[in-house]
């Protein structure tokens, strides 16, 4: 039986390979780095990024969890950011596929349940499903599903809206520039207008959605924990 592979899978592989190459490059720089000297260039950027992510996680959760949770948050952040801006490299964004965003949101939802169970204990965790009293179990289940839906659909909707709008705008500009004679279907307006829109839809919106996904994941997890100290 022939297995049909969706084209998105190739884009996911491409983005994964890109991230792997980037991390190998950073790793080779970090190995050469002397810990006693002053950090510069790539090393400095990495240090600042790690510090920023740890600060975000520590603000929303507690200190012990920050060391456990921040590697996952950083991984998700890097993956979502690189796939959001992969529209600039003439790839289709993997985050424009609902399976990818649903998977990412499902990981977050499972983490919420795991940390909630870890903090409350088995008895308290089962009791938390029936709070404030027993018939509310239905509402609790719906609220858990809506967390999953809103996390995944927000990212997916923003990215797919950006990419479809870019396609529509390219088609429109191509039809406008075909009115100009002696150009042989060269999309001259596309060259002028598209970079600005790419900056907004790919770079700005991509960075924004990454930040929002990360912040919301952390604060949903932090909501299940005892108050910050």
């Amino acid at each position, binding site marked *: 039986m022939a297995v049909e592979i969706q084209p998105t899978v190739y884009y996911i592989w491409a983005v994964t390979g890109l991230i792997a190459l980037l991390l190998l490059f950073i790793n080779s720089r970090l190995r050469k780095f002397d810990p006693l000297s002053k950090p510069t260039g790539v090393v400095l950027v990495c240090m600042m990024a790690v510090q920023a992510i740890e600060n975000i996680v520590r603000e929303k959760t507690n200190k012990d969890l920050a060391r456990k949770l921040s590697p996952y948050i950083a991984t998700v952040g890097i993956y979502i950011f690189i796939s959001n801006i992969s529209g600039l490299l003439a790839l289709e964004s993997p985050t424009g596929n609902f399976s990818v965003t649903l998977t990412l949101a499902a990981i977050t939802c499972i983490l919420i349940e795991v940390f909630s169970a870890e903090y409350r204990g088995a008895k308290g965790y089962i009791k938390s499903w029936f709070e404030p009293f027993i018939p509310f179990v239905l509402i609790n289940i719906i609220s858990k599903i809506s967390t999953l839906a*809103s996390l995944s659909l*927000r990212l997916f*909707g923003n990215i797919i809206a950006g990419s479809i709008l870019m396609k529509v705008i390219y088609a429109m500009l191509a039809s406008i520039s075909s009115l100009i004679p002696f150009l042989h279907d060269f999309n001259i307006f596309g060259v002028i207008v598209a970079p600005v829109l790419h900056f907004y839809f790919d770079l700005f919106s991509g960075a924004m959605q990454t930040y929002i996904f990360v912040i919301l994941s952390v*604060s949903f997890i932090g909501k299940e924990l005892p108050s910050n100290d």
Partner: protein
Amino acid sequence: MEVALLAFAAALSVMTGMVTGIFEGKVAIAAVESIGKNPDASGKIQGMAIIGAAISETCAIYGLLVSFLIIFVLGNKL
């Protein structure tokens, strides 16, 4: 006729963005006002404003997704 109805339905579902636009502006107003009152807390207020705007934006995104579904899924069936 059917195409026109589908286009009308898609346009209606995108209109969820109308109210979202107004009230996301209100989030920005509140953030700017509170930063003006208390400039030291600007970092925290910025984070909260972005989260609030993102959560209220979800509604508009749902409308947009529904209109995409109408155009690309129902439109292909014509």
